[in-house]
Each structure stands twice: as structure tokens, then as C-alpha cells.
């Protein structure tokens, strides 16, 4: 259950706004339906009272918005779920925003739903969904209610949650959790165990669906370049087109490489992909490879840590050995 309620957050935020400690609040704004919650900036307690929501769909990671929000006058209040806090730290490590201008409230999390997950459970006429104890209750237009176990039906990123620990905050609401055994590399290992041909077929099927909408990049808290190479004609790899399957592969390989060692595995890329491409499996491959070859490393776990691809050990394994290991 969500131990911290909307009211708790609302009270906290209202108090901080009233005291002048913060000028703005980054929060979730209610939508037309239960699931279409929008990240928004609230400037008053009244606005929050009206539109602020905190429920099972409050999953969006706010960390990246801090780059923009901290450029403004005054302090901003942000709510950090465990996975958001890793992104938060990683952005700090890369000097992407001014810590002094943020008041961070850590909130515990035991898994957030998202629209596409719930829609997959009720593809036709989804009216709303909420949590009732250990269950997820879905109301539909034509098929009545569906009651399903909540934990089992979470999106992948939450089913394989890596950590319930908020690693950066000024104030923690509720009880902080721990890093958990996520089994998040199981799927990567399964792919590794397949033949080259089967892997190729798998990824060809997945990546050929890419429409180059850039949602994965634009939502990614590690993708904070002033100008992305894929938008920059001077880079020589800029392209808006999909073509002959090469461009999509190149885009996703390079994107994953650019965030390798910096990706906090927040799973936003897979959440936002309109084509449901399991993009996190690319990032996790890098994380898994890094862990196995260079020692466990979790980007964002510690502010200021040196990312593995800008680091080395003289005894690192050779590329050929890494390939052997990854191709079982």
C-alpha cells in the first residue's frame, strides 16, 4: 500500500509553499481519466488542492525537469520515489542542476502502474483503475470490473525494482526501504542464452517498430545534452527517417552507449515508447555487462561516483573475454 497519501504530500507542500521555503512544486496533475496523470508545476496550495494527485499512476520521474526548474528564481519542491532519486543523484554528479535550489522529499514506493500496462490488461474501454489492498481493480465500459493481484501486474520496471531506497532527499516521508534483489537481469540473460540468429530475429522485430519519435530519449534523465547528436546535422548521424532497419539500430545502440554507465535503470524509456519496444533491455545489457566485468556499479547510487566508461582498471578483461561471457 502507498503508506504516504496524497494528503500527506499536500500538507507538506502547502506548508513549504506557505513558509516561502519553496516557490514551486513539481507534482502530478490529474487528468481526464485515472491513468493520464501529467507532470506539472504548482505554484500555490490552491492549485495543488484542485489538481494535485498522488496515486498508482504517479509514476513519472521528475528529476529531469529539475534542469529547467532550477534555472528559475526560488526553490523547487520535488517528490522523489526511490528510482527517481538515482536519476537525481546522477544529474547532480553531472552538474546538471543546482542542488541548493531544490527541496527534495523522498517518498517510499512499492510499484507504480502506467497507462500502457493497465490498458494491456483491459484493452477495451478502460474507465479507471485503482488499488485496493493487494489488488488492482480495473473498471471497464463493456466488461465490468477486473480484479487482479497488484504486484504481479506491475510494469516490468516495477516488477524488477532494483531499489526501494531513496538515495537523495532533504526529508523522507514514510519509511525508507533498501536495495532489493531485482532479478532485473534475468531477461537479459535469457536473450544472451539464445543463439545469435534468434537474438537478431528478436531485436529485428522489436527495433523495426521504432518510429523515431524520440520519446525514449526525451524522457530519459540521462539524455540531457544541450543538443543531441541525432538532432545535430554536424554530427553526421542526424536523421529523422526510419530506413532499412539500420537507422533504428544505430539510434538505439548509440543512445544506449551514450547512457551506458550513466543510466539509472528508471525504466522511463520503455514506459513511454509508443511502440512498446523493451528498450530497458538494451540499457540493462550494459549495466549487466558493467557489473560482471568491472564490478557492481549503480549509476546514481552515490553522488559524484565516476561512471564506469570514464574509468578503468589495468586488469580489466579484454573485449574478446567480455564477448565470450555475454554470449553463452
Amino acid at each position, binding site marked *: 500500500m502507498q503508506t504516504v497519501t496524497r494528503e500527506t504530500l499536500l500538507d507538506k507542500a502547502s506548508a513549504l509553499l506557505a513558509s516561502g521555503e519553496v516557490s514551486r512544486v513539481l507534482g502530478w496533475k490529474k487528468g481526464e481519466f485515472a491513468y493520464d496523470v501529467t507532470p506539472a508545476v504548482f505554484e500555490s496550495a490552491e492549485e495543488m488542492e484542485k489538481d494535485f494527485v498522488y496515486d498508482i499512476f504517479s509514476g513519472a520521474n521528475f528529476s529531469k525537469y529539475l534542469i529547467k526548474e532550477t534555472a528559475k528564481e526560488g526553490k523547487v519542491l520535488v517528490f522523489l520515489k526511490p528510482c527517481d532519486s538515482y536519476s537525481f543523484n546522477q544529474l547532480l554528479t553531472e552538474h546538471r542542476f543546482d542542488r541548493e535550489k531544490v527541496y527534495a522529499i523522498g517518498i517510499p514506493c512499492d510499484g507504480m502502474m502506467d497507462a500502457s500496462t493497465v490498458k494491456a490488461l483491459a484493452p477495451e474501454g478502460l474507465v479507471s483503475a485503482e488499488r485496493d489492498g493487494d489488488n488492482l481493480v480495473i473498471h471497464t465500459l463493456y466488461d465490468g470490473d477486473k480484479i487482479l493481484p497488484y504486484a504481479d501486474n506491475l510494469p516490468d520496471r516495477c516488477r524488477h525494482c532494483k531499489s526501494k531506497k531513496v538515495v537523495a532527499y532533504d526529508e523522507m516521508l514514510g519509511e525508507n526501504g533498501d536495495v532489493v534483489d531485482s532479478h532485473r537481469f534475468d531477461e537479459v540473460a535469457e536473450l544472451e542464452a539464445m543463439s545469435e540468429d534468434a537474438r537478431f530475429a528478436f531485436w529485428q522485430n522489436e527495433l523495426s517498430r521504432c518510429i523515431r519519435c524520440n520519446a525514449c530519449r526525451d524522457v530519459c534523465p540521462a539524455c540531457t545534452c544541450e543538443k543531441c547528436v541525432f538532432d545535430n546535422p554536424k554530427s553526421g*548521424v542526424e536523421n529523422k527517417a526510419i530506413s532499412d532497419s539500420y537507422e533504428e539500430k544505430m539510434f538505439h*545502440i548509440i543512445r544506449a552507449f551514450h547512457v551506458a554507465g550513466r543510466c539509472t535503470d528508471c525504466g522511463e524509456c520503455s514506459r513511454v515508447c509508443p511502440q512498446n519496444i523493451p528498450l530497458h533491455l538494451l540499457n540493462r545489457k*550494459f549495466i549487466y555487462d558493467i557489473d560482471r566485468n568491472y564490478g557492481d556499479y549503480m549509476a546514481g547510487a552515490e553522488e559524484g561516483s565516476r561512471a564506469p*566508461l570514464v574509468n578503468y582498471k*589495468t586488469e580489466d578483461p579484454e573485449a574478446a573475454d567480455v564477448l565470450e561471457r555475454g554470449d553463452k
Partner: protein
Amino acid sequence: MQVNESNIVANEEFRPKIVAFCCNWCSYAGADLAGNNRLAYPADIKIIRVPCSCRVNPMFILRAFQRGADGVILCGCHPGDCHYTSGNYYTRRRMAMLFSMLNYLGIEKERTRVEWVSAAEGAKFAATMQDFAEKVKALGPNKRLEDLRCKQ
């Protein structure tokens, strides 16, 4: 003309296109030494000189495959011998990660290689290139990371 004849031969038998990135201080000099010693290796190998193996961006490697390369090999100083002290250590991590990812996507692992060749290892350079070219040739043309537009 002789050049055209060789083109005809090329049409009959698959000849791989291979790009070799060589660092200026060790591997490029190693390639030069192979030349000095007249150690033959397949002409399918074309060398691009870079100051250090750490200059090689993964984008260059993907670019090579896009443009029609069938294999890409990257050569640098032996670990510990980098002219810039640490460049090849970064290369090693970067390329290990990149090549592992390419293989994860089903691209044949024999198409990519990292090899450390010193300025004194002309023989190793030639032997490495011979071996790499043979392996790539055995795989046949690169189909998994190709861009058909470039093959028109």
C-alpha cells in the same frame, strides 16, 4: 585494364570490406613494420590512422558497417603501453561494451575485434589481419547491420 579485371574477380568471389582503426604510435607503426618486412596480408584490410585507439567513436564503427564494411578491427598499444598512458584502457572498456551490445543484437561477434599490436609486432599485425579477414570472409557479407541504401 587490369583494375577492371580484378573487379570482375570481386564479383565472382566474396571479398570482405574491412576497416582497421590503428593508433598512430603502436599499431599503425606495427602495420608499417609489416610493410617494411614485406609481410603480406589481404588487401581487403584498409587502415585508418587515429592518434590513439581511444579516439575511435562507436559511431565510426557503426558507420563503417552502414557503409558496407563486413568487419571492423581496432588496434592499439598494449595495455600499459599507451602513448597517452590511459587511452587504450578506455578503449578496452568502450569496445568491450559496444561489441558485446552488437552481439546481443545478433550481430556476429567475429565481425568485430580489438587487438593490441605494438610497433615491434609487424608479424603479429600481418597475422592478425590475415586471421581476421579469413573469419570475416567465412561469415559472408554483413547483412545484420547494413543499410541497403548504401549498397545500391
